[in-house]
């Protein structure tokens, strides 16, 4: 069992999260994929933490937790506001920036 496996898991999860972000038709699920992505990044840091002697990587993991939580909060608030304004959470329909 080596850190490479954990890192690979992290990469796979991250790619899937990116794919979900690009293709999802439901904005809420898009946000969920963002959280997944952050989680995947977390796993990557864990893999580095497992192979190092210092305690620093573990601390970064904690900071990531906090950041992810804050980001989820803000993201959801904005999402609720969008849903109130545009009456839809299909990102394809919110194309006011269309040129």
């Amino acid at each position, binding site marked *: 069992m080596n850190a490479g496996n954990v890192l690979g898991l992290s990469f796979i999860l991250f790619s899937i999260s990116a794919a979900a*972000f*690009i293709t999802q038709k439901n904005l809420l699920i*898009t946000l969920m994929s963002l959280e997944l992505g952050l989680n995947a990044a977390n796993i990557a840091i864990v893999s580095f933490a497992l192979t190092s002697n210092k305690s620093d990587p573990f601390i970064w993991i904690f900071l990531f937790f906090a950041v992810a939580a804050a980001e989820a909060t803000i993201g959801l608030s904005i999402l609720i506001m969008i849903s109130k304004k545009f009456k839809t959470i299909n*990102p394809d329909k*919110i*194309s*006011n*920036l*269309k*040129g």
Partner: protein
Amino acid sequence: MTHESYNLLNIIIAPALGFAIISVFSKLLKGRISGYIASAAVFLSFLFSVLAFLDLRSFGQPLNQKLFVWFSAGSFSADFSLAFDNLSAIMALVVTFVSFLIHIYSIGYMDHDKDFNRFFSYLNLFVAFMLVLVLAANPILMFVGWEGVGLCSYLLIGFWYENIENSIAGKKAFLANRVGDAFFITGLLLLISALSSKGDFSLDFTWLKENYQILSADKFAGLPILSVISLLLFLGATGKSAQFPLYVWLPDAMAGPTPVSALIHAATMVTAGVYMVSRLFFLFDAAPYALDIILYTASFTSLMAALIACLQTDIKKILAYSTISQIGYMFMGVGAGVYAGGFFHLTTHAFFKALLFLAAGSVIHALSGEQNIFKMGRLKDKIKITFILTLTGWLAICGLPPFSGFFSKDFIIETIWDSGHKGVWFFSVLTAGITAYYMTRLFRTAFLGKKRSDYHAHESPYIMLWPMSILAIFSVSLGFYRSSFLSFAGMNFEPRHMPALATHSPIIAGILGISFAFFLAESKFSNFIEKTFSSIINLVKNKFYVDEIYDYLVIKPLAFFSEKFIFSLLDRKIIDGILVEGLAKTAFFTGDFSRKIQTGKISSYAAIFTLAATIALMCIIFGANI
């Protein structure tokens, strides 16, 4: 040289200034004022030429004046410099004097024309360019004048441009000139490239005269380069001086007003070719075969033009073909090795041909526009002074002593005999006889005999008669100055030892021609000749179909090529379609395509973002240099 020479630029500036003033103030100049201004300008030019001539005589050496450097490339530079030596002195004096007389004449001739001012501005411009050509010290500046007179010829031939025929004639003249110019330029370029391979050089005529031998051994495509250059330059001269094969524009050029024909197409522009060849005579002399080619071409042209003139009915066309024939004589003089003889004939011809053209203009003016000699007849009773003047010109051109034409033409024919080309000599004598024949035919038909149609004739005003009289005086008296002229032009006249028959044959031919013309006035014999030689007569009447041959061989393929290929394909499809429209369409479609990237959807933006990030990662991870 340190001699403070006379300012040669004045000679050119006077008519150029005249052109500028008349064309700028054209609306303000009413009546005949522009005519007086133009004539005064040319007279000033003549005065300056006389002063320069006196300066030349006292100084003894050619005068030079370098104005400014026009352009330079490497060690070679083309200067705007004027030179005044014996040859250019003669040309300048003749050109300015004859131009002055014709300007005075034109005041009367063009009196009722609505484009009076424009005519004189063009005339002055022409004189200015001609003087640039004459006074140029190097061939490049001469070419400027060369092209300039071609331009003015076009402008003046197509002067009454409302009639499309005149414009077509002007266009034909310009194009034929242009072809000649192309040959001239090619020859010049060849000369420059050959010289540049030998080291430092300058294009001044004096430098060339001293140093041209360095090219004697060079070859171009297997032929001696001097011969190739000379041939190309001569072809350029044929365009300007209306020799075979580029003479076809001169008869058509008679569509212009008669003073134009007198000035440009008798006395000055058409002699530019002879002048150029005389200037570069050392080049032609050193080149094998060059002088022979000139001689043969000129004699062929001379004979052919004389034959065509025999059957023309338009008075100006007869004189046009006569000009072609006489210029052939000048070139024959050059080709025989004595260019001074050709030059002397140039001078006498300028006077009597200008006289003849002005007289023809007087006749046309008298008859209110009639140009067909078979509609004239018995004019000697109606327009007596014109009749006497025309008589003078006629006798001069027929080569009868003591008129000037005899002295000049005779000298050339003797020179040809001396050079050993007996066949050419025979043809030149034959041409002299034919010349006498057709000129007599013209004279007889128009002035003598009985009235051939119903016309009203009135004598021309004095303003037209005075210049003609002065020209007539010169036509009579110039011959006696032959020896001083020839020595001034650079050659000494030596009495020749020739068989008596050879010496007198030109006069005999002349008298034979005149009498044959009078004899043929009897209708029975002329009818007989017409019947037996009808096919030949038809051929000659149609000018040997040269125009038709050109049309078929050159013009039709060119027009077809330019219409189908250049116009339809190149111009329409490629340039308009692909380049211009294609450029616009490319911009349009690129914009249209790029517009679609802005979808406004988050997902597509995110996709592109991810893509870019992936590529960046790729570069970092796989070590590529961004």
